């Protein structure tokens, strides 16, 4: 299982990377390689040029930028997992990251790579979808910004512009108030592509009453989706309320059938995980208030 031949370029700057990608429509970005290289090895993918951006300093790092936390594309998943800033300001992402692959894949895999391949079971993509993060590209058209719902179409298929370079993903910082996040997924084995996943973030006021609730479902269809559980606002996130809101929000959820799991299973599992994620988020928010 050897990759088909390709040319390897390691640009010295983002501009050079962009130029290399723009020059050849069959070029691909190589960052962490954890998704792309298996496809190369099986020859499902055969680009003519690989543009290795993994060492570009301008594509590495996590920083605050106003009301956002910017994670540059080639930042390792393991770095994001260790980041205090992420833990403090983007708790849902922090809750999602331990579910990404295994330690050796997180050590190389990048935040941008996870998003760029459009895998519906990618945990980072789900967190981005729930939180309304923005996905930023540099292309011939200049800088382009995508909302997750306009970006993910299906496995490997995204709205990424031709020859574009994913530069960073900007996550909104946590809202004011008592914030809690919950992330749940189910797969045959820990670390596998999930059959269903759910990410939730809730905000409580001082009395424990919910002021905002967000929920997203991943892995069940072509793309992660944010679903509307805004009706939970104003309540106390009781188990009944959560169940009712989830049942309503997930009505008509599009689920795929495959060898490993049926659509029926995915739909029911998504609901169960959504309930668990919301409850986990609620409990985390309550605990935050208690401290």
């Amino acid at each position, binding site marked *: 299982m050897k990759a088909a031949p390709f040319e390897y370029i390691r640009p010295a700057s983002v501009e050079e990377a962009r130029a290399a990608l723009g020059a050849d429509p069959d070029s691909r970005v190589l960052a962490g390689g954890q998704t792309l290289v298996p496809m190369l090895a099986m020859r499902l993918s055969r680009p003519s040029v690989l543009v290795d951006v993994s060492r570009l300093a301008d594509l590495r790092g996590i920083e605050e930028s106003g009301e956002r936390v910017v994670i540059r594309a080639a930042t390792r998943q393991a770095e994001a997992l260790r980041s205090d800033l992420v833990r403090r300001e983007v708790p849902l992402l922090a809750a999602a990251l331990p579910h990404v692959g295994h330690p050796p894949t997180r050590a190389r895999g990048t935040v941008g790579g996870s998003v760029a391949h459009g895998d519906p079971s990618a945990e980072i993509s789900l967190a981005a979808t729930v939180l309304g993060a923005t996905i930023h590209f540099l292309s011939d058209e200049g800088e382009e910004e995508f909302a997750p719902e306009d970006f993910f179409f299906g496995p*490997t298929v995204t709205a990424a512009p031709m020859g574009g370079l994913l530069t960073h993903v900007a996550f909104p910082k946590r809202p004011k108030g008592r914030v809690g996040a919950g992330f749940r997924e189910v797969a045959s084995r820990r670390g596998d592509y999930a059959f269903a996943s759910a990410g939730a973030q809730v905000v409580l006021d001082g009395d424990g009453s919910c002021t905002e609730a967000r929920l997203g479902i991943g892995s069940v269809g072509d793309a992660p989706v944010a679903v509307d559980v805004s009706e939970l606002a104003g309540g106390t996130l009781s188990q009944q309320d959560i169940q009712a809101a989830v049942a309503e929000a997930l009505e008509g959820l599009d689920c795929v059938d495959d060898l490993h799991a049926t659509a029926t299973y995915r739909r029911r599992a998504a609901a169960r995980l959504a309930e668990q994620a919301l409850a986990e988020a609620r409990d985390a928010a309550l605990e935050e208030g208690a401290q």
Partner: protein
Amino acid sequence: MKMELKGSEEIAASREALWEGLNDPAVLTKCIPGCKEMVETGPDAYEVKLQLKVAAVGGSFDGKVRLHDKEEPVHCRITISGGGSLGTGNGTAEFRIEETGPGTSRLDYEGTGEIGGLVAGVGQRVLGSVAKHLTKQFFTALRKHFAESGEAAA
């Protein structure tokens, strides 16, 4: 593995123009994603060479295309079979064209395919989404073709 594709597309072209376009190797070469070559080998029979590419997924496909049951300008059935570096594909699709207004038509299509080899064995996760994307690309190109030929005609 079995695949099904089904849909309807509104195209800004008359029924006749659409019919002609769908029977014109030059138009098809332009619109079929990754089509490098389409050679007529007999009445309603073609050989195609494709270089497919959807995001990271890519590979070659050489196939034979045949048109059957033609009812000009309304209906035809297309069969395709072939293979390449990604595996094999065989399929049949029915097309029906309805006129929906002056210079606009609707193309209804419904097809089933059978995929074998590499993609069936290792790429099932991506197959559906790639197929949908290629279909979308085809119709985007087809629309563009008629938009351009419309402009040229105007």
